[in-house]
């Protein structure tokens, strides 16, 4: 039905002109569509999908990629597929990047569609593992159409595009989770499953946070490479800037190349980045510190101290929060104290970030600031409960006094009534 509507729209468009068309207008009718529209199966697919294709919407047509004569009679396949008119048929996979780059690497042309669009995809691609294998003649290496699709290519911003952030991991996984393909390269196929279980995927798919990283945010898109040992902190630091800065500061201060021994992935994994938990710090069974530091090391002792301090901060904060919440439920006005407690809670976040400085003193200073706020919160909660008790005692005393007044008044009323004739004064 959609294909029929598309054909009708096509047929009613203006006559075909071989000269370049203004950017942004649909192409005129062509022999390709007229003929392929009558065919079935795979031969019909390009026509059926073209209506969703960003290239078609911008005025490009079949012959812009495949060559041939779009002005040929619709029943003359040979005239349409005329090699003298540049007919190339289905481009070879090895040549696809160059074919796409004819336009996408041409700044003048691309500017006519979008002045901000990038034109370095081919250059980037050539630096990627995919591009290098392609250049070396490996026709199984990923080319443009593997990620962006073919006939029906949508802009990356379109959620239906294979390269949209919400679909990209699935797109990469089509090859990288396929052991039949990856075995030949000796590559693991767990990345996609690992990523889907990660905190990043949870942010992207569950919270709908399009800023959360997917494959290309760490590996690059056209220039896709596995980040090397020296660049992991840079890759993670492109989003986790404060942690990366702290990491670098310590590195410079101590004259170490920490990247070599402490990379983000040692504690956090790479594809399967789990939500950071409090018990990663310290020397407990789920600690990541003990992965490298053994009992007796000064670092081990530091980790034990930091872990214990962080635990105490959390416990005191939990106590303060619980006390203030219970006081609030009891009707006490503690909103200002609860607001003040937020600063202490912020110190928990601060301390967690400062872990990445590997500087015990800085970490302990943040914990101390948080503990001070937590203690104030605990005091405020205890004060609220003391006041609540005082209020209730005050109420009990007041009620006794009021009751005594009522009894006194009742006795007085009875005494006054005794002075009246029975049943009151007759009027």
């Amino acid at each position, binding site marked *: 039905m959609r294909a029929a509507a598309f054909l009708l729209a096509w047929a009613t468009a203006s006559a075909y002109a071989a000269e370049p068309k203004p950017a942004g207008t649909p192409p005129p009718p062509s022999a390709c569509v007229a003929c392929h529209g009558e065919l079935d199966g795979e031969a019909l697919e390009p026509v059926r999908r073209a209506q969703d294709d960003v290239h078609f919407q911008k005025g490009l047509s079949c012959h812009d990629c495949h060559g041939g004569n779009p002005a040929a009679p619709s029943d003359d396949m040979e005239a349409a597929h005329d090699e003298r008119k540049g007919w190339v048929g289905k481009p070879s996979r090895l040549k696809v990047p160059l074919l796409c780059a004819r336009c996408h690497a041409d700044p003048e042309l691309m500017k006519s569609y979008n002045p901000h669009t990038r034109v370095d995809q081919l250059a980037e691609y050539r630096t990627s593992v995919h591009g290098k294998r392609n250049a070396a003649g490996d026709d199984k290496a990923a080319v443009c159409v593997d990620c962006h699709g073919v006939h029906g290519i949508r802009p990356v911003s379109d959620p239906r595009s294979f390269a949209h952030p919400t679909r990209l991991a699935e797109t990469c996984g089509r090859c990288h989770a396929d052991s039949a393909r990856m075995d030949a390269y000796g590559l693991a196929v767990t990345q996609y499953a690992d990523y889907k279980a990660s905190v990043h995927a949870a942010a992207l798919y569950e919270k709908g946070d399009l800023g959360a990283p997917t494959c290309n945010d760490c590996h690059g898109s056209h220039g896709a490479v596995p980040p090397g040992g020296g660049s992991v902190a840079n890759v993670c630091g492109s989003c986790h800037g404060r942690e990366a800065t702290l990491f670098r500061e310590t590195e410079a201060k101590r004259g170490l190349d920490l990247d070599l021994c402490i990379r983000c992935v040692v504690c956090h994994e790479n594809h399967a980045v789990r939500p950071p938990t409090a018990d990663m710090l310290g020397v407990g069974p789920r600690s990541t510190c003990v992965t490298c530091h053994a009992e007796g090391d000064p670092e081990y002792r530091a980790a034990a101290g930091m872990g214990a301090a962080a635990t105490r901060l959390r416990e005191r904060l939990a106590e303060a929060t619980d006390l203030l919440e219970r006081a609030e439920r009891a*009707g006490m006005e503690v909103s200002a104290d609860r607001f003040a407690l937020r600063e202490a809670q912020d110190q928990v976040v601060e301390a967690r970030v400062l872990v990445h400085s590997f500087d015990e003193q800085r970490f302990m200073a943040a914990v101390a600031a948080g503990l001070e706020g937590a203690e104030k919160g605990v005091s405020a909660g205890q004060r609220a409960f003391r006041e609540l008790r005082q209020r209730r005692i005050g109420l009990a005393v007041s009620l006794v006094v*009021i009751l005594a007044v*009522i009894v006194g008044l009742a006795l007085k009323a009875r005494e006054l009534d005794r002075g009246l004739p029975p049943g009151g004064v007759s009027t």
Partner: protein
Amino acid sequence: MSAEGEPPRGLRAWLDERLGLSALTALAREKTVPLHRHTAWYYLGGMTLFLFTVQVVTGILLLLYYRSSADEAFESVQFIMTRVPFGWLVRSIHSWSANLLVLVALVHMFSVFLLKAYRRPREVTWFTGVLLLFLMLGFGFSGYLLPWNTLAFFATQVGTEVAGAVPVVGRFLLRFLRGGDQVTGGTLTRFYGIHVAVLPALTTLVLAAHLLLVQRHGMSVPESQHAARTGRPARSVPFFPNFLVRDAIGWSAAVGVLAALAALFPWDLGEKADPFAPAPAGIRPEWYFAWMFQTLKWLPAHVLGVEGELVGLFAFGVGGLLLILVPLLDSGGRPGRSHALIVLGWVVVVYAAAATAAVYLNAASG
């Protein structure tokens, strides 16, 4: 105290000559309250007056710390609740007493309605009483916004929007109430002025008239308790001190109830209003406006081609007018009309109670 018949001496004589105190003491001596099986209802007027006095006293105390600007209102009430000695008590009593006041005033009015105490010559006493009730509702509406918390802010927005839907003058009313097109700090200042100056001034006048008329006509005795109907001689008790001592028992009990409510259920302050935040769920007005709120929700979008909200507002307007005009509707002593009025009164009460219950049941379930 000087003996009966002897001219007063000393300070009392000095004051009496200038203030006419002896006339007041004579009035106190002469004033009596009828004694019959419905005498208990007479206490409600005194109780309403007592709670109003509590409002005046606690209101004046709150004035010492309250600040009527959008930037400071919430914080000043928070300060009263946490830092001012017994501020929590004063504010909670003010809030609880306001609600009890409206409740007692409603019961007082309905008892007067059922006992037909509004009949000649007490029609004007009824008019002033209904006006006082409306003034109390005005106090409630204007006071609700003053802590500048989220619930009050959005409830006021809805309430003033309803006023804005009144035909012809709606736009003027809305802007008059809000002090602009939106509920802002300007509205708060305006409501504050209305709450602490305009309404108290009007209430003083109407209350004075109401009390004077009560003294002028004395307490109404229901027809069923007239000596001619009961076959027993009409009896009464002196107002001072017999009835007043009983009043004082009720007032003391009210102080105890208010203290208990304030200590056990301090009035919630909520969260500071944020005019740019979306309206939270569960917005509802004070309970005494809830039945009108629910009625507007129940009404279909259009009734006989007229907008449902307008139909509701028209009905409330007519209802308020009928309430004021009760003594005139019941004039002439025709039993059939009088009976119909009583039935109508009960229908309104049962409907209002059901609609109010619906609001709170919806809130509990949703």
